[in-house]
């Protein structure tokens, strides 16, 4: 189980994340939602070890991650929002490099890298440097890199950006299969439709604070019939149509 307790992050006095706590149980996909700048990516970066929290603790199976960050990262896969890769490497080389760093022996790493390149429909581009890949192709390479060691925890930060319909469906299926096998998924996204379809629980952040955390079923019965309305209520979002009309009026004035 992943436990996030009282996580706080301040950047030069500005609080980006304020006392956030949540858990992810095995077999659960947690939807992590919030408007831009609400602290979603900050949380994901703390969980993945990209940044240190100002306060609070992340525990994995009851042990603080900070006690053995390298051991924790061996059991975690991560897909970042922006596809950051070594562009001079080919897709296969990159997967091989990540697999070797994850301690997978060369022959097995090569087999997995080639299999994943094929399954993610990147096989034709296996000899090309990733600098020539489209955003969607890079995103698929990152997905392959995140799962090639069969992690217990998958952390996805806007993983659908740049993916075409087929790849997005594949990712959705992958998440469901992973959850069915008892793995944990932290899924940070703006795509409420997908969250509604694949997640069992959601956490909604607003201005760095968790304003709502419950199962989708319960939220539907207590707040609104669909996630978009629940999200709008939780984040005090104004009705979009009058705002759009005001914008149009402003540019015509």
């Amino acid at each position: 189980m992943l436990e996030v307790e009282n996580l706080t992050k301040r950047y030069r006095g500005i609080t980006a994340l304020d006392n956030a706590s949540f858990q992810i149980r095995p077999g659960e996909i947690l939807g992590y939602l919030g408007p831009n700048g609400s602290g979603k990516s900050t949380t994901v970066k703390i969980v993945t070890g990209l940044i240190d929290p100002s306060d609070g603790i992340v525990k994995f199976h009851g042990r603080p991650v900070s006690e053995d960050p390298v051991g924790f990262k061996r059991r975690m896969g991560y897909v970042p929002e922006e596809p950051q890769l070594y562009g001079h490497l080919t897709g296969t080389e990159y997967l091989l490099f990540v697999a070797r760093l994850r301690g997978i022996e060369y022959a097995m790493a090569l087999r997995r890298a080639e299999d994943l390149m094929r399954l993610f429909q990147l096989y034709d581009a296996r000899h090309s440097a990733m600098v020539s890949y489209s955003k969607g192709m890079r995103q698929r390479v990152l997905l392959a890199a995140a799962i090639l060691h069969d992690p217990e925890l998958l952390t996805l930060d806007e993983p659908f950006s740049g993916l075409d319909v087929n790849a997005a469906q594949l990712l959705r299926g992958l998440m469901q299969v992973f959850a069915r096998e008892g793995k944990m998924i932290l899924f940070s996204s703006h795509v409420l439709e997908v969250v509604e379809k694949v997640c069992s629980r959601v956490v909604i952040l607003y201005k760095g604070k968790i304003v709502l955390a419950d199962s989708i079923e319960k939220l539907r019965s207590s707040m609104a019939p669909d996630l978009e309305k629940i999200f709008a209520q939780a984040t005090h979002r104004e009705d979009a149509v009058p705002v759009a009309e005001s914008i149009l009026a402003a540019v015509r004035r």
Partner: protein
Amino acid sequence: MSPRRLLIEHFFAGMFRSEMLSEAGIENYRTWLISAAAALFAFHTQFARLRARNFGQPSDELFVTAASFVTILLIVSLEWQSLFPGARDWQVLSPLPVRKSDIFVARLTALGMFLGIAMIAANLVPAGLYLSWRHWVAAIGAGSHAVLLAMALQGLCLLVLPRVFGFVAQALLLAVSIVSLPLLLHVPGLRALDRLEWLPPMWWVGVCDARYARLADLSWLSVKRSGSVVERGRFRPTGGDFQGMGSIDPMGC
């Protein structure tokens, strides 16, 4: 293979596979190789000219030390982005089970190996010409001086122009080395070297030529000074983060 060794291999190989070159494909590699061959040919022609006449004048010695100095300075400025862990290394490697210290040490080791090979390659011809350990030491010393000077220059830019120091330092180094290259070809045959005593490569002539021995102290002193500037600067991992020279604040904060 240990993660550190994998990282050293990765960073070292990356220095020969620039993204700038791979972006437009193999054609750029060919252009690069032809340019390198042309540069080597030009140097070879110059050395052949030196051999044909009464070789061994102080100006020839200055040519050898200056060639080493300028070549290494050009290599350092071209490889500037890949010398130290940057934002991308941090974003790609931090979620992987690798210690931050391993990333930093691997980068530095790869850099040391690369510059070592570059220095040996740049001084093979002078070594063949002189066959004297003093000239070899002077040429290697001049190359090392160029590396330390480049680092010290970056430190200075970091103090004066913290936001754009990387760009300014690289532009300055590139400008100096590109302007120096054609001037270099006019060095053999120069008579009045006394007026050039302010040039760092001239100080290294003092190491191999008794007539300029008084400058030798200056060369060692300058290396010592540049080294201490680098050593006192940000050129070390701090507080568990690797904030090497040239690295960008990964969070932009």
